């Protein structure tokens, strides 16, 4: 903690007043000036010896380093004074979207020598994200305010606010399964619960799998074959090239919340989930499973933001292990940037099982009132419809999702398209 000491303008002002009054009194022979200036000299004489540098320490303790969007967390400022502090102004720096809902910040107080004080604050996390609190700026003053000591305590705890996720009743079923056990009924035959087929008995088959009715009809043993339950690979593709924003909400916020909800839903099914943040800053997480991986995905999502970039990117920049074969790729994109649309079509052309949720920017825009501007707006909306049609022609299921609608609705629309497309 570096402390900057400075004399307040009061010290200079009182000194000048006292000196001027005394010197003028002598020069002009006006003793009443002495009586006028003496109190200011007294203030300096009393205040100067008391203006010693205070010694104190400040610590910041956070109740929890993870919370949900909209939740409140407790923060404690612990002050320990080695010497008396006549006046201490404290301010805890707060990032955007974090507000104080209980307690006072900034605050001015006095500390006795050896005193330990705790200041409690409750902060509301208004938006998801990685919020770094602090630093703590302090300004101490002596009893008469003649000197100040300012310092910045560089304590910056990180608080992660997870996005509020919507509960999904059903998710999209990938077409292909993987080799590990999971909740998805595979198309292949093996050991499972869902009946698949009958085949002749071979040595080594468990006796309990013998289908006695079929065996009685055929006069030889037949066994049941089932569809095994396997896990699947799902890649969540978040387009962060551009967004539409109105006030505090934007398409990227919707996409992040939807991605978190989908990640939780698939990980709960024991599927492997990967993440690709495709935008100005490229981020990826190779597919994984479990609660730890969910936290990794959410942490990566918290850092997602729009970064302006003119660099043309395609999916070749992604490591191959990020997009495993037979994975279902669910893209959440406002379809505002040509690079994102190109990447999606490229994915489809490479044979990936792709579904697109069009996070509609239309609710975040208003139709201009002018004739020319209004026509341009209509053309823009038609262009978006054309993009969706282009994706559908490439056998990509696309559904528009508007702010305020449940995420389940576009998922069901995509499911219906995929069912029809493969009948």
């Amino acid at each position, binding site marked *: 903690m570096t402390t900057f*000491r*400075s*004399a*307040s*303008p*009061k*010290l*200079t*002002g*009182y*000194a*000048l*007043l*006292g*000196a*001027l*009054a*005394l*010197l003028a*009194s*002598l020069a*002009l*022979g*006006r*003793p*009443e*000036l*002495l*009586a*006028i*200036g*003496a*109190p*200011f*000299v*007294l*203030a*300096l*004489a*009393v205040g*100067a010896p008391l*203006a010693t540098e205070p010694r104190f320490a400040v610590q910041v303790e956070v109740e929890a380093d993870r919370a949900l969007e909209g939740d409140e967390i407790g923060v404690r400022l612990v002050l320990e004074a080695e010497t008396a502090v*006549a*006046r201490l*102004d404290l301010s805890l720096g707060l990032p955007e979207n974090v507000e104080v809902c209980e307690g*006072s*910040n*900034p*605050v*001015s*107080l*006095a500390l006795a020598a050896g005193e330990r004080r705790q200041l409690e604050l409750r902060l509301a996390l208004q938006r998801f994200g990685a919020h770094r609190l602090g630093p703590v700026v302090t300004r101490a003053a002596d*009893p*008469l*305010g*003649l*000197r100040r000591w300012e310092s910045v305590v560089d304590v910056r705890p990180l608080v992660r606010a997870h996005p509020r996720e919507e509960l999904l009743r059903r998710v999209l079923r990938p077409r292909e399964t993987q080799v590990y056990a999971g909740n998805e009924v595979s198309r292949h035959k093996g050991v499972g619960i869902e009946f698949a087929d009958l085949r002749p008995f071979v040595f080594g088959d468990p006796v309990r799998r013998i289908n006695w009715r079929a065996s009685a009809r055929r006069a030889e043993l037949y066994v049941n074959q089932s569809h095994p339950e396997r896990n699947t690979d799902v890649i969540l593709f978040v387009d962060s090239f551009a967004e539409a924003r109105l006030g505090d909400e934007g398409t990227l916020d919707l996409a992040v919340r939807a991605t978190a909800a989908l990640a939780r839903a698939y990980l709960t099914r024991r599927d492997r989930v990967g993440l690709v943040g495709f935008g100005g800053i490229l981020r990826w997480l190779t597919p994984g499973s479990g609660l730890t991986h969910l936290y990794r995905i959410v942490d990566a999502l918290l850092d997602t933001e729009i970064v302006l970039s003119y660099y043309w990117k395609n999916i070749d920049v992604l490591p191959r292990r990020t997009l495993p074969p037979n994975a279902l790729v669910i893209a959440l994109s406002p379809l505002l940037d040509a690079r994102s649309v190109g990447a999606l079509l490229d994915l489809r052309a490479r044979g990936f099982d792709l579904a697109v949720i069009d996070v509609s920017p239309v609710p975040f825009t208003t139709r201009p009132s002018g004739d020319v501007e209004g026509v341009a707006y209509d053309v823009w909306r038609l262009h978006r419809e054309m993009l969706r049609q282009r994706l559908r022609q490439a056998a990509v299921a696309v559904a528009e999702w508007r702010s305020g609608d449940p995420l389940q609705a576009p998922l069901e629309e995509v499911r219906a398209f995929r069912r029809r497309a493969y009948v």
Partner: protein
Amino acid sequence: MAAVGLALALLLAGLVLRRGGTIPWAVACCAAASVVGRAGHATADAHAAALGVLLLLAAELAWWSIDLSPRLHVERALVRMKAVGIAGLVAGALALDGFLLALTGITPGSRVTLAALGMAAAVAVLALVLRGGPR
């Protein structure tokens, strides 16, 4: 009257714009107005003592008002301590001025004593300024 008006304007400007630099000038204008107004009564009497103490009180209250920001929550204990401190300072200033009045009233040679005290005080103030200035 002009000097008093200027002093009030400077004080108001300092309070509204939160600039403490105008306070000493406001005090100086008041003191100058008093000296000019009492030309011919060049004595250190109770009037001058009271003016000095009142000017100190006004300056302290003005600085306190400027120091307090509307966003800053000030604890009551701090407010009490500050009020007690200002009261103590004002009482001390009254006592000091009373002592000075007593000195000027004792003997003719007290004027020399007063001058010597004034010189010593001026030197001490300058020394304090030099020692305690910004670094």
